[in-house]
């Protein structure tokens, strides 16, 4: 049974939401298909390092004389894929722990809350850096580290949503019908906590992008010469005076992606508060 059905009305009549969806779709399209669109190699040195736009190079050349446009078009997919995997992992963990803690009210509940307290008492980027120090900056390490940093908060949100839903009549009715705990969680609880956690999921996706691209920016994640938006910014800071576009273009891509996701989350939250009234 669905309680939040009203929330879906008016979602696309919201201007912030429309702009958000548009921005996000555009950036994802560039990140995913940019590699095919680009006619030039992101690795080939084609001219003077830091050359300004011109001569068939729309965004100029980078600090090693490579085509900036090609590197920007190829550089989005790494961050996007890593952040998306991290978000999936965050919610796989968050939903399992959150449902368990919220529904069973067993020892997992206080245990989870203390874990959240401890993880929240370290800045999330610092936690990422600790993982990178211990395990190196490989892709799996970044995904797992981002998931460990972000899942306790997700679990807490799922838990409180579950606590609220599980006292409703239809859950009690399902229990009275003699349905198994798993079936009750899957058919009655989970569908009703989807709207409140959808916004949180979006926020966690945008935090994953920030965490992972920050690690790449700091030069501790994806290794050169691979193109990655975060890494492109830091490696080209030295040629900022001669070709600022080499820095601004990747920064704008990350910025637009995050603004898009945040506008979508904001739209969902507003739609939810309208639906409650």
């Amino acid at each position, binding site marked *: 049974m669905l309680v939040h059905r009203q929330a879906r009305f008016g979602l696309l009549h919201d201007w*912030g939401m429309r702009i958000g969806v548009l921005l996000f779709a555009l950036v994802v399209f560039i990140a995913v298909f940019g590699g095919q669109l680009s006619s030039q190699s992101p690795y080939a040195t084609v001219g003077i390092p830091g050359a300004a736009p011109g001569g068939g190079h729309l965004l100029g050349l980078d600090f090693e004389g490579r085509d900036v446009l090609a590197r920007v078009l190829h550089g989005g997919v790494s961050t996007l894929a890593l952040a998306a995997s991290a978000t999936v992992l965050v919610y796989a963990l968050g939903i399992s722990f959150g449902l368990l803690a919220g529904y069973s009210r067993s020892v997992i509940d206080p245990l989870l809350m203390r874990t959240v*307290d*401890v993880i929240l*008492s*370290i*800045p*999330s*980027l*610092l936690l990422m*850096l*600790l*993982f*990178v*120090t*211990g*395990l190196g900056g490989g892709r799996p390490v970044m995904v797992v580290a981002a998931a460990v940093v972000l899942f306790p908060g997700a679990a807490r949100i799922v838990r409180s949503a579950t606590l609220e839903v599980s006292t409703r009549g239809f859950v009690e009715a399902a229990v009275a019908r003699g349905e198994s705990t798993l079936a009750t969680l899957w058919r009655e609880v989970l569908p009703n906590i989807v709207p409140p956690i959808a916004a949180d999921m979006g926020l966690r996706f*945008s935090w994953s*992008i*920030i965490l992972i*691209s*920050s690690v790449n*920016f*700091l*030069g*501790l994640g994806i290794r050169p010469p691979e193109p990655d938006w*975060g890494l492109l*910014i*830091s490696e080209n*800071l030295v040629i*900022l*005076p001669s070709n*600022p576009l080499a*820095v*601004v273009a990747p*920064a*704008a891509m*990350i*910025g637009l992606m*995050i*603004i898009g996701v*945040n*506008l979508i989350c*904001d739209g969902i939250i507003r739609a939810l508060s309208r639906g409650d009234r």
Partner: protein
Amino acid sequence: MATMITGTQIDADRSTAPVTRSIRHPFVRFLGRRLAAGVVTLWVVSVFIFVATNVLPGNVAEVVLGHNATPERIQALNVKMGYDHPMIQRYFTWIVGILHGDFGKSAVAVALSQVETSVSSTLVSPLLNSLILGGITALLLVPLTLLLGALAGIYARRSPDLAISTPALVFGGLPEFVTGTLLIFIFFSVLHLLPPTSGFSPGQSPLTDVGRLVLPVLTLLGVALGAGVRQVRAGMIETLQREYVQYARLNGIPERRVLFRYTLRNALAPSVQIIAQNMQYLFGGIIVVESVFDYPGIGQYIVNAVLARDTAKVEAAAIIIAAVYTLINIAADFVVVLLVPKLRTAVA
């Protein structure tokens, strides 16, 4: 959430409150409890920091010595650094050292046979520099968050609100390195006003050239203000809808007085929590901002240490940042209890 904990803890205190106030004042007990919880959290964090940075113990010597390291030299460095001891023993040596102000030896310095190998002496200058950067930002952040948040709340859904809330939503969520590089682009490449980096010569105090502090502070403000302003605005709107505010208005009390006497004060308490969160946020944000602007603080220190796999330096910087983080949180809980009249009477 922290407010909730504060509430329940005080309630628990009241139920068992002793009559002899002078000896076991509930307020002191509350503070004591909060501090004790902070110490326990920090201890768990210290274990976490140590385990995370020591999962691959043999690795450190190899990375520090580089490619041309012989097994003998790796072995020698391992013995010198004490990596041959069991992890539990090393943890206790480390934590006891920290309690005495000794943060261990830098593996890189030992490997290069430098005279000065102590980590503690290298921490002072970056910490001071970060304190200057964070302090200036915090001094501007607190009044700006309250002012802009309150204004947006009072003029909710009218043009002043839109002028404040739209940029807060759009720019508040951006990562520091995006905001920072865009500010460099605007103020250096386009306007030629400010230097792109704040590279200070070693030993130079950042206060000797304030112009170089402008962009790092602006970046931190831009990132931290957004979330704070939106939350203060929400608190303000909620308070304005309360019955006692409506009642005050119906009684013909001037709007200015309604705002200052009845609304602001009650909207302020949750704001303290928000500001504390933002301050904590500064400590995470400072890591990236210092790298963007080449600012010689604790953030750049920890990034360089991670790059060099200098474990002792990473651990030292991490535990210090975690400690400051925890302290800010405790201070915020404390101020909230002092500010909210209801909580104050519940305690005293």
